[in-house]
């Protein structure tokens, strides 16, 4: 499996896609830090990128890479290697190279910024970690979707719909639910609903680290108490890990059943 991961990473490097991705993040990172000036503000801008772009790019990349390397995968499947290892290897290879581009692409501007101004950088580290996790999750989900169908268009469509559901529509339903049940105490519900979407979970975790959390009033206090506590932290991170394990399980299951 390690060999496959290594091969995928090498392939992506040769493709220059990761390099392009890295350059894009570098550009965005420097641009935001230079032009926004205010530290807390730039964190919020980065948050938007991490929440929207990282999952989207992960999704697109996952699908694209899978369909592009169909021939190679078929070749590998003919070899005496476990099917699971082939697909999981592909997934991990793509997400590691994407994640590295993200961490380097935003990390270098951060380091440059810290060298100039002495500010606490723990929220940036958290931002990178969450970005990495989101990228991995969405690449995996996209791979799972594309493994399940040979039709490229359909695969792309499903993967994009999945991203749309998680990044946009989920919040819409959450909002509808909050409005529909406004007569009930909703903090607990909001908390649970947020924890079970990785994008929302990442958003809230970062927001609670910023001063903007004072705006969140009583609801924010409930969140802070929960996510600040050890059990909350453990639960939140285990939900993220579960989300990362979900593509793993899906890919293994589909790959086992499918006839290639």
């Amino acid at each position, binding site marked *: 499996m390690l060999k496959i991961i290594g091969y995928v990473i090498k392939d992506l490097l040769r493709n220059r896609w990761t390099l392009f991705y890295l350059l894009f993040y570098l550009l965005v990172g420097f641009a935001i830090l230079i032009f926004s000036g*205010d530290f807390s*503000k730039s964190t*919020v801008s980065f*948050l*938007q990128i991490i*929440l*929207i772009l990282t999952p989207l790019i992960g999704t697109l990349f996952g699908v694209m890479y899978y369909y592009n390397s169909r021939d190679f995968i078929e070749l590998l499947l003919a070899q005496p290697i476990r099917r699971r290892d082939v697909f999981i290897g592909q997934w991990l290879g793509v997400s590691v190279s994407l994640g590295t581009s993200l961490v380097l692409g935003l990390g270098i501007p951060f380091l440059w910024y810290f060298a100039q101004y002495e500010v606490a950088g723990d929220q940036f580290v958290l931002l990178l970690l969450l970005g990495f996790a989101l990228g991995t999750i969405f690449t995996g989900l996209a791979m799972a979707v594309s493994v399940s169908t040979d039709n490229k268009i359909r695969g792309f469509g499903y993967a994009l719909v999945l991203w749309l559901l998680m*990044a*946009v*529509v*989920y*919040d*819409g339903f*959450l*909002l509808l639910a*909050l*409005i529909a049940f*406004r007569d009930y105490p*909703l*903090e607990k519900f*909001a*908390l649970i609903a*947020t924890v079970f979407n990785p994008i*929302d979970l990442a*958003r*809230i975790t970062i*927001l609670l680290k910023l*001063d*903007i959390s*004072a*705006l*969140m*009033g*009583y*609801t*924010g*206090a409930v*969140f802070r108490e929960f996510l600040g506590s050890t059990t909350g932290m453990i639960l939140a991170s285990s939900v993220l890990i579960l989300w990362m394990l979900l593509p793993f399980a899906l890919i293994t299951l589909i790959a086992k059943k499918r006839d290639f």
Partner: protein
Amino acid sequence: MRTFITSWCWVLLYLTIVNWAYAKTIKVCHNCDIRLIKQAVELADTGDTIIVLEGRYRESNIIIRVPDIVLIGKGRVVIDAGKENQAVVVFKSPNVTIKNLTIKNVPFNSTEELAAVNILYSNGYIIEDLIIDSTFFGILVEQSDSGIIRGCTIRSGSSIDVYEATIGNGIHLCKSNYALIENNVITNMRDGIYFEFVSNSVIRGNYSYENKRYGLHFMFSNDDVYVNNRFEGNGAGVAVMFSKNIDMHNNVFKNNWGMSAYGLLLKEIYDSEIKHNVFIRNTTGIHVEGSARIIYEENDFVENGWAVNFLGGSYDNYFYHNNFIGNTFDVAYFGRINNNRFEENYWNKYTGYDLDRDGFGDVPYRPVDLFTYMVNEIPETIVLLRSFFVQILNFAEQVVPVLTPADIYDPKPLMQKWKWSGS
């Protein structure tokens, strides 16, 4: 009658001159005949001057009972109340001056308001250049008119996480009119400056920061002016309540950040003017509740959570030529419009255009966006803060307003930041 008055005047003049001529100076120091300030105060007659020389005086409950006394420190004079009682009390003695002293260690008491300087029933007091440290209350003035408190530094000396009720107020005036509070620095008290039933007074050039509750607190105090003050990082900001005719000019409200912190809290305020103030990074810039006929002119609201939060029962508030820059929410609004108006303000979130180049946007600006409206109605929806979906909704609502109150809008939003007129 006239002769009667004239003769009285003569008598008064005579008395004053005699007094003045006979007014003596009492020196207090460690090697003098009089070693305690208390002794000096007991010896002093009307119009005397007590000069305290440099040194540390461990005494408390110094009570001045004669008028026209001047108590003045030379060099660094420290009065250490030793956690026993209040330090200096002026009781029914008009025109007393207290100057250039350091007062320390006034203890907490749960039944009495022990203060470093306590002025009771004494008009015309002047308190200048005091440094008050480790105290329960700082300067407490009750039923005394026409006084001046100037250039004092007051701090409680308590550690940060002490319970609010165990700290007193920095400068506390109660039923004392015509006061001038000028150039004081107050920190770490409960309320920096607290006015109860104080009218026709001026608060000028003070710096009140990191107090547990309010930097400045007004209750039932009419016709007051406060200008050029800075209020920074106070637990709950500044509160002006149940008062009329207050002028608030050129103040800075900064970093009053927290769950229930306001830059400026207005409750039941009528006929007032808020002009040339700067509100930076407060959770809520101005919180308006039940207030009427207030003019907000040429203020800057920068990077607040909510720039302005309107609650019910506010009538005829008029916002004119203000700058709203980088606030998370510009205006939150509950209830009916009630003739509150926004006109010719600059909103950095305004995305309209100005085709005729008259400096005003051609489409009105609606400061209450959909998300602000929703958060007001259902506080839990704040969990969707900065969500992509909400941003899409906001945009859609801005193009075609459906839910947000249609009558709160600025008909002539400025295209460029408004420059204050000469202040």
